[in-house]
């Protein structure tokens, strides 16, 4: 299997470990990833300023990806949601397409709208499949409670993103469960992490995050798992900043899903970039059950 990889802005700059761990997993699963260094910003931050520029930015990336014959795999949920949104609005809107293609022409690009955009989790869930993933697990987690934070922009608007059922999302929980961890049931799993307001209204951003984290904690979560750099930075960096100032703060450590899955696949914490996390997640290894439960399965899968 081969995909064009879209990283966006945050991952290469601030969440390198997501890139590292996702690539390590793809290596493990024989997924070939083609990084395109000419990709630009997906347009997400421009939405508050000028939605035409947002569409243009998204369309430029999509046009670039269309020149390759592979589906586009996106790691960031905000990038994913925005690329999907742009595709949705550009579909059958020829006047808008023309306006955009006029600008893209400068770089010999044309937006056609004929590429599939998939989030990393969808690739794992649908294209690879739960069974194949299960067979790749080397050591299952034991007595590990994980709160899976779905991520707004992948989930909603559901008619556009088509990532999961917005009211009752299960994709992320399924992916957590196959590692042996328990995906806890919590009411705020598809709520916003608060990151969009960081830098604008920090108090509100903090409250939104606080409510979400405390809901996860109250439902017994040992870690919160995410598959989006915005959520990750919010839970890792911003939470850490708050905890530094507020001694009573109880930290709920975030772990990228690619790190969670990778560790159970037997990939080393170093390759998964554990050291890059601001909030230490080394204790995750202590949840790995001692015996290699899936040795047989692994052998089978190699046949």
């Amino acid at each position: 299997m081969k995909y064009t990889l879209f990283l966006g802005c945050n991952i290469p700059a601030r969440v390198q470990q997501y890139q590292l761990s996702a690539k390590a997993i793809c290596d493990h699963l024989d997924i070939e990833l083609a990084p395109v260094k000419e990709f630009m910003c997906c347009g997400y931050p421009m939405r508050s300023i000028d939605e035409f520029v947002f569409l243009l930015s998204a369309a430029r990336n999509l046009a670039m990806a269309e020149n390759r014959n592979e589906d586009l795999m996106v790691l960031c949920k905000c990038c994913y949601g925005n690329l999907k949104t742009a595709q949705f609005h550009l579909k059958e809107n020829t006047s808008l397409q023309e306006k955009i293609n006029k600008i893209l022409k400068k770089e010999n690009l044309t937006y056609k709208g004929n590429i599939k955009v998939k989030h990393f989790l969808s690739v794992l869930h649908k294209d690879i499949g739960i069974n194949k993933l299960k067979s790749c697990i080397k050591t299952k987690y034991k007595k590990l409670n994980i709160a899976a934070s779905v991520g707004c922009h992948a989930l909603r608007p559901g008619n556009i993103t088509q990532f999961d059922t917005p009211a009752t999302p299960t994709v992320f929980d399924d992916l957590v469960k196959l590692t042996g961890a328990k995906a806890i049931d919590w009411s705020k799993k598809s709520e916003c992490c608060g990151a969009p307001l960081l830098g604008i209204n920090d108090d509100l951003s903090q409250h939104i995050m606080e409510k979400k984290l405390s809901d996860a904690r109250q439902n017994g979560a040992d870690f919160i798992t995410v598959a989006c750099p915005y959520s990750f930075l919010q839970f890792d960096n911003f939470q850490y900043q708050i905890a530094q100032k507020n001694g009573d703060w109880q930290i709920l450590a975030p772990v990228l899903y690619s790190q969670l899955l990778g560790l159970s696949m037997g990939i080393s914490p170093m390759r998964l970039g554990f050291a890059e996390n601001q909030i230490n997640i080394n204790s995750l290894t202590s949840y790995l059950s001692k015996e290699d439960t899936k040795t047989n399965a692994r052998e089978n899968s190699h046949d």
Partner: protein
Amino acid sequence: MAVSIRFVLNVVNSIGRLVMFFDILLYASLMICFIGISYRIFFWTKKSIGYHPSSGTQRLSSLIRGVVSTLFSLSIFRLVKSLIFDVLLQGRILKTSLLRWVMHILMFIGFTALIIMHALDAIITENLFTYYYSTINPFFFLRSLFGLMVLLGIIIAILRRYIFKPARLKNAKSDLFALILVFIIILSGIALEGIKMTSVSEFTVMVEDYAGLDYEDEDIIALETYWVKEFALVSARIESPFDSNALTLGLETHETNCMDCHSPNKSAFLGYIAAKMLSPVAIFLDKRNGVSIFYYFHIISCFLALALVPFSKMFHMVATPISLFTNAVKAPPVTNNNTTGNHMISGNHPMSGNQLTKQLMELDACTHCSTCNLNCSAGMIYEAVQNDYILPSQKILALKKAANGQELMSKEFTALFQGLYLCTNCDRCTVVCPSGIHLKSLWISSRENLIQQNLIRQNPGGQNSGQTNSANPFILTGFSFVRGLNKSFIEQKDYNEPLTKTFETVIPPEKTGISDTIDLDAPKNEFYTQTGLYPFSLPQTDTFSHCFGCRNCSTICPVVADFDHPQNQLTLMPHQIMYSMGLGMVDLAKDSAMIWNCLGCYQCQENCPQNVNVCDILFALKNKTFNLLQESSS
């Protein structure tokens, strides 16, 4: 007799003047160069383009301390590594573009070698090689080879910059000036060599000085014949077809007297080509002292370039290696990760004094190569907004201007501010910069500086001046995310004030808290047009008219849920905004605090039973308000 003595005196005199003239020029340009470089380096510690909470730090002394402590630590190994890979082999250029690397390495090796082997031959080459003569191989040949390398480099540079110019590559006058200057130096050098080859007077001097033969000798005529044929010499008395006896004798004479100190002119191929090209006018030029005219032209252009090193793009020869060294030793920790820990110690705070000094140095290290522009994630924003300052290389130019103390005109300030803010902080410019400039910390620091300056500009009389237009609409957008992540580097007051001021302007206090009644007769505006909301909005943002007031959106909104008195604090809740829009009261809707506190999480839109695109409408209102604010503040 008297005539010949006067002639000899004249010759001695003119040689003396020549030597003096050369020396005066050399020392003057060296002096200008040296003073200029010292001034520029001193300047680094004096000016500031970045945000620095604690002013009055002794930047010069902390710089010296920093340099000394680095040199006497294990970092010295990293410096050596950087010297080899970054400075000499220019690995950072190779990483971004093979063509650019070929171009620059050709110029770099060619020019450096010419300086060492040719310009400094009396100091370096003569001492290394006892048999050195500028006219023997390999030196004779190498001079041409190095010259050719530089010329090829210049040609590639011109093709890249002006012919095959990729989108978003930017040229400045200084780029062209530098290319032309180097081009003139090389070309004048080649022309000088060429004219010397053709010159009979040069030939005569050589014959007298080295061979000790008399000009009218048969041997000399033969030698001259041989040189006209083989060495591109142009003589009035010898023309093709050549006398074969003379050629044989000439070769013999050449082998006995000249060959040891003069390799064939063809080996200096560029000079030889120039000689051939000059041959039709060679006699004319030789009679009018062409060699010394060309000589002066060449040395004056060289000395001009030397004197201009500190004041032109050429200064990158000094600043860029320093930039590469400093960033090889310590890059400031302006990312989210590990903001605490060791990085924070030892004055490596991204906004500390040494960082301010480093930033000034880095502005000089920029060669305006546009690699950053070509890799900039905000490229499409630039294409749509058409503000040059969105592109990194152009921001550097503006920041240089600001550092030089030139007051930015308010239009330019606004443009630079926009350029600095419309950055997605992907840090790619930092990764690709061939000069190793830590652009990301430059942006974060100078952006913060401008945010603070903006407050002062908007509010010149201080807090009590009564002016309330302190709006900085950019700060209310997703571009502020990285500012939020880096807030620990900014003093709390400085961090909060621009935000509170902007919120106060956007949502004036008199508008917070909705009145019990709404004036339905208030003037409706033309804001909503056939094509959607001004200036542009996504399709289906007219769906507010489907709203039947079930309040699902406001009930599910996590922002509304966070407020004790949402209607007071947010002015309008989402359902009320949809309703206002339906009533044509767009002003009421767009001035609500709700739209700037919207997370964009799409809960409202997802849960609307009437398929109203609530969240998209909120985004459209943001666009509208943002544009109005930007118009009013500029």
